[in-house]
C-alpha cells in the first residue's frame, strides 16, 4: 500500500526563494548589496554587506554594473538595512564616521592603519600626508600613505579628502582636486584662506605659546592680534612655542 501521508508530505518540499541565496551571500560578506545615497558632492553608490560598508563610488564616475569590480564580489541592488543606513546617513551629515562599521578585507594592515587614522581627522580640518605617516608609526612612509589613500574604497565616509600636501596645497584626489575642494568647503573649511603655498604651515597663539595646524579647532579660535604664523616647526620652536597636543603638528 502506498503511504498517502508520506507522499503528501513530500509534496511540501519547495524551492527556496531566490532572495534567500542573495541575502545569505550579502550577510556573510561573500557578496555586496548596494544602494544610492546622497553626499555633499552628489549621489553615490554605497556598497555594503554583513560586515559593514565596503565601498563608496560617486554616481557618474563608474557604471552601476562595475561596482562588483571595485569590491571584487558580486553586487546586488537593494535597500541598505535600516540600522546601517541610519549610521551612514548620520556620518554623511556630520562628517564623522566612527559609528559606521567598514568591511576593509583585502587591504593591508598598513592601508587599514592609514584609513583608521584618517577617519580621526575632524570635519573641516586637514592634515598633511606626513602627519598620517608619523601618527601610525611609519614617519618615512609618506608616499605609501598617499598610495593607500588613493585606493581608499570608501571615500567621503573615510575622509581621505582631509589629507593634503605639507606645502599647504590641496593635492590629488581620486575624483579630481575640484571635488576635494568642494568637500572641504562643504565641511566649513576656508580653503582660500588657509590652503595654498602663500599661507603659513603653522599658526601659533601669542598668549599660550602653542602652535597648531592652521585648520586645528584651537588655531581657529586665536584672536587676530595674538595670531602668529610660522613656515616651519624650527621657526616656531625658536620663537619659544610648543606643538599643540590635540592636532600634533609635529
Amino acid at each position: 500500500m502506498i503511504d498517502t501521508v508520506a507522499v503528501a508530505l513530500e509534496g511540501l518540499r519547495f524551492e527556496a526563494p531566490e532572495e534567500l541565496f542573495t541575502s545569505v551571500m550579502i550577510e556573510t560578506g561573500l557578496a555586496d548589496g548596494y544602494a544610492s545615497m546622497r553626499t555633499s558632492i552628489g549621489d553615490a553608490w554605497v556598497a555594503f554587506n554583513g560586515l559593514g560598508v565596503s565601498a563608496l563610488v560617486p554616481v557618474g564616475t563608474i557604471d552601476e554594473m562595475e561596482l562588483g569590480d571595485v569590491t571584487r564580489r558580486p553586487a546586488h541592488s537593494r535597500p541598505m538595512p535600516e540600522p546601517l543606513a541610519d549610521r551612514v546617513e548620520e556620518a554623511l551629515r556630520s562628517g564623522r564616521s566612527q559609528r559606521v562599521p567598514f568591511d576593509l578585507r583585502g587591504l593591508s594592515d598598513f592601508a587599514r592603519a592609514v584609513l583608521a587614522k584618517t577617519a580621526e581627522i575632524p570635519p573641516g580640518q586637514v592634515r598633511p600626508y606626513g602627519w598620517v605617516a608619523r601618527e601610525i608609526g611609519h614617519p618615512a612612509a609618506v608616499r605609501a600613505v598617499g598610495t593607500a589613500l588613493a585606493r581608499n574604497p570608501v571615500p567621503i565616509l573615510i575622509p581621505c579628502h582631509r589629507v593634503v600636501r605639507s606645502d599647504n596645497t590641496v593635492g590629488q584626489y581620486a575624483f579630481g582636486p575640484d571635488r576635494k575642494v568642494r568637500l572641504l568647503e562643504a565641511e566649513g573649511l576656508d580653503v582660500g584662506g588657509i590652503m595654498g603655498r602663500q599661507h603659513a604651515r603653522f599658526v601659533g597663539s601669542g598668549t599660550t605659546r602653542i602652535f597648531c595646524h592652521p585648520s586645528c579647532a584651537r588655531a581657529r579660535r586665536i584672536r587676530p592680534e595674538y595670531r602668529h604664523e610660522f613656515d616651519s616647526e624650527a621657526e616656531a620652536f625658536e620663537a619659544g612655542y610648543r606643538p599643540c597636543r590635540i592636532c600634533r603638528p609635529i
Partner: protein
Amino acid sequence: MFNKPMELSAALAANLDAAYPEVVRALQGQVFSTARQLLGNRHDAEDAAQETFVRVYRALSRFSTERILDLRIRSYVWTTLINVCRNQARSSRRHPQTALEVDHGFVDPGSTGVEASATWGPRLARLPERQRTAVVMHHVAGLPYVEVAEALGVPVGTAKADVHRALARLRTMIETEGEVA
C-alpha cells in the same frame, strides 16, 4: 557537484569563500522547506534559513582546516537549523502578534502548494516537537534516517520510531477529520 560528503568538506577546507555558495545552493531547498513546516509561515522560514546559513558560515570561518575536514557539514547545518527554529518558535510565542501572521495561503507555481500547506500545517503543529522535526526532515526534506538522527542527537532507531509515530498520528488525524466531514 559535491556528491560525496568528503568532497564537500575538502572544498570548504581548501577555500571556504569559494565553496560555501555551493553549500547554500545544495541545501537551501531542503532547509527552507523544513523551516517552512516547523515554523508554519514563509516569512519566518526565510529568516530562519538565512540565519542558519549565516551562522554556519561564521562558525566555519573560525574553524581550523583540520576541524572543517573532520566536520560533517550537512549535519552541522541541520543541527543549526533545528536550534534556530526552536529559538524562533520560542520568541514568537513570547510575541503573539507575530505568531498570528501564519500564512495559510502559500503560493508555489506548478504545485498544489496552497492547499497542501493549509491542511498540513495545523496537523504538523499538533505533533510533539521531536516527532514533528523528525517527520518533516525525513519526509518533507527527504533526509535519510542517519542524518535525521545525527541532527537530532538521537540513535537511528529512535529517529525511525519518531518518524513512524508521527506518521501514525497524522493518519489518525486524517481519519478523524474524515468522520467529521
